[in-house]
């Protein structure tokens, strides 16, 4: 990736808000839409969580936005306060009582929570681990985000992206044409990338971020598939269509599953992408209300497995350099992918030094959950990045490896601002370059 592409992308993101469609909903409509989402999504499990909260505030200590800024409003459970009130007043068993002693939510209140659920939450799930009652807060923030999106109260950037997805069928300027062009270019460079093949055992994705900033990661994934002689194809649509900002999720998941099924896929492999993984791996079956006929893996997981079963061989990197590994929240804490990327790092002959918070407690890059789109949240992102930076520096590693291109983008953006010189590397690209004959 060259500096120009990076800067162009950043500038484009900064201008994204201006492209958001105007919302014409009345306050009453916004409240009604938000409530409809909450009523539909809050089930018995969420109810048990909401009923159990002790207001102990421990979750704050898990949240990088609170830890980074010390601002009390970033306490995770506080971010779902409107949801909790709707639950209590309209869903919970004691709603008759709560209707007497609490007031209804308002559009203004929902709007005030926009910053809390979009700017200052990346749904990283660290608070879910901290809670002594086991309350899973981040999925409920997901519901809050959906509710605000339905009420057209998502940040302008999210609404702009959603509008682009709905009208132009593109994500951040990337649609089937751009993906096909990239595939053609990579094939021309000598790495065969089949797009939308009629039949394939493995269906792979590229994200708009991959196409725009990190085409090498697509190339290296293709190298790996080709080396293994796999029957695979790249889907002609972007993984972000799974629904950035909680929009269009159901429609897009349905479409992607249909396309994979149509090709007789045995495995759906997701690229180095954050939100796509848990979405397809754990949520898709529930959204469709049926089991999926194929396995869902992330590329790091696939690589790890192939290394472990000996089908893939790597040339160790000379000098055994010290590296540290960042577990992307959506793959690690939300997906359980911890071993496989480490297997790859081992096979690459790298000296892995873990950060203080790693594995299940790894700190977020700061821009997950689409937060990196929000221009005004720059300060918050930087604070989180600094936490990461200090932990990475403490390892003494000169290079930080990750398997999510969103994380990678956030690190690059944060490093540029903080003049941080540690190299940020992509796992799939390291592997793709070290394939043994």
């Amino acid at each position, binding site marked *: 990736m060259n500096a120009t592409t990076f800067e162009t992308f950043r500038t484009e993101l900064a201008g994204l808000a201006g492209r958001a469609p105007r919302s014409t909903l009345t306050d009453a409509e916004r409240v009604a839409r938000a409530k409809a989402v909450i009523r539909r999504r809050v089930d*018995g499990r969420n109810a048990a969580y909401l009923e159990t909260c002790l207001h102990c505030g421990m979750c704050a200590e898990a949240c990088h936005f609170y830890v980074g800024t010390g601002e009390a409003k970033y306490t995770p459970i506080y971010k779902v306060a409107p949801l909790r009130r709707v639950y209590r007043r309209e869903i919970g068993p004691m709603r008759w009582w709560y209707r007497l002693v609490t007031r209804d939510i308002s559009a203004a209140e929902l709007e005030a929570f926009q910053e809390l659920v979009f700017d200052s939450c990346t749904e990283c799930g660290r608070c879910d681990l901290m809670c002594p009652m*086991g309350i*899973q807060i981040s999925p409920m923030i997901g519901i809050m985000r959906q509710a605000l999106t339905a009420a057209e109260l998502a940040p302008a950037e999210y609404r702009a992206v959603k509008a682009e997805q709905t009208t132009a069928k593109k994500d951040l300027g990337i649609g089937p044409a751009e993906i096909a062009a990239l595939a053609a270019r990579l094939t021309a460079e000598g790495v065969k990338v089949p797009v939308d093949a009629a039949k394939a055992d493995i269906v792979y994705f590229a994200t708009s971020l991959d196409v725009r900033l990190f085409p090498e990661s697509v190339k290296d994934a293709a190298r790996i598939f080709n080396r293994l002689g796999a029957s695979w194809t790249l889907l002609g649509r972007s993984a972000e269509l799974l629904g950035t900002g909680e929009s269009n999720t159901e429609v897009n998941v349905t479409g992607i599953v249909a396309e994979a099924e149509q090709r007789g896929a045995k495995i759906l492999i997701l690229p180095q992408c954050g939100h796509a993984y848990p979405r397809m791996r754990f949520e898709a079956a529930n959204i469709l209300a049926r089991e999926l006929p194929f396995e869902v893996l992330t590329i790091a997981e696939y690589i790890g497995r192939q290394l472990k079963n000996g089908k893939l061989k790597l040339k160790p990197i000379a000098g055994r350099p010290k590296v540290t590994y960042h577990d992307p929240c959506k793959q690690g804490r939300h997906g359980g992918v911890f071993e496989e990327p480490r297997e790859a790092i081992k096979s690459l002959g790298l000296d892995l030094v873990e950060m203080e918070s790693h594995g299940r407690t790894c700190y977020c890059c700061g821009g997950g959950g689409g937060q990196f789109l929000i221009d005004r949240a720059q300060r918050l992102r930087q604070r989180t990045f600094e936490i990461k930076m200090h932990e990475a520096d403490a390892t003494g590693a000169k290079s930080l490896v990750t398997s999510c291109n969103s994380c990678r983008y956030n690190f690059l953006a944060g490093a540029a601002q903080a003049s941080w010189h540690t190299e940020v590397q992509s796992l799939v690209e390291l592997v793709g370059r070290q394939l043994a004959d």
Partner: protein
Amino acid sequence: MSLLDFARGPAFHVAILIFVFGVVWRLVGVFLLRRNRDLSPARAGHLLEGGMRAILMRSLPPHELEKHIVFQHASGYGWHIAYFAAFLLFGPHMPFIRQFLGFTWPTLPNTWCLALAAIALALLIVLLLRRIVNPVLKRITSVDDYISSVVTMLPLITGIAANAHVQLFGVRYEELLALHVLSVCALLIWFPFGKLMHLFLAFPARFQAGVLLQRKGVEA
């Protein structure tokens, strides 16, 4: 009818009926809500085991995220243990327990229980003060927290006073005992409506989380 007769008689009777009614109402109302079946393949098996482990794991102090919450954890453990020990190991409480269960168990000397109750009360007061001044807690505190805190402390205060025969503002022992029973009534009546319900909900919530995280292959 003296205050004590009222407390031990109709007041407690009504309070415990409200308690049982409210607790079951809330529990059934939560657990009968729709629960979507998880259709995605689990990353790891032994989901029940995962759930049970979460119940245990979230109870045990060692925790990778512990660094910043040492005080909360320790004080939480401290007052809960002291509170229940003072209640369950105080000899004169045994007839109360026996009337429900039909059996009792060995108890501690009263002074120990007095000390335990004092520890629990001191910690509760510290935690209440903390709730009043801590910015994070201020954000998430509701009236429920204050009511729950007070109704939790009242039996301790009245119990300590009655046991130590402290004549608080000239209140005599039988009146203190009556207030002690009435404070328990207040606790029972408020219980189903506030956060005290976590006594019944904490383990199910942890279990759910354990199953969820086990499915994802993440240690709860």
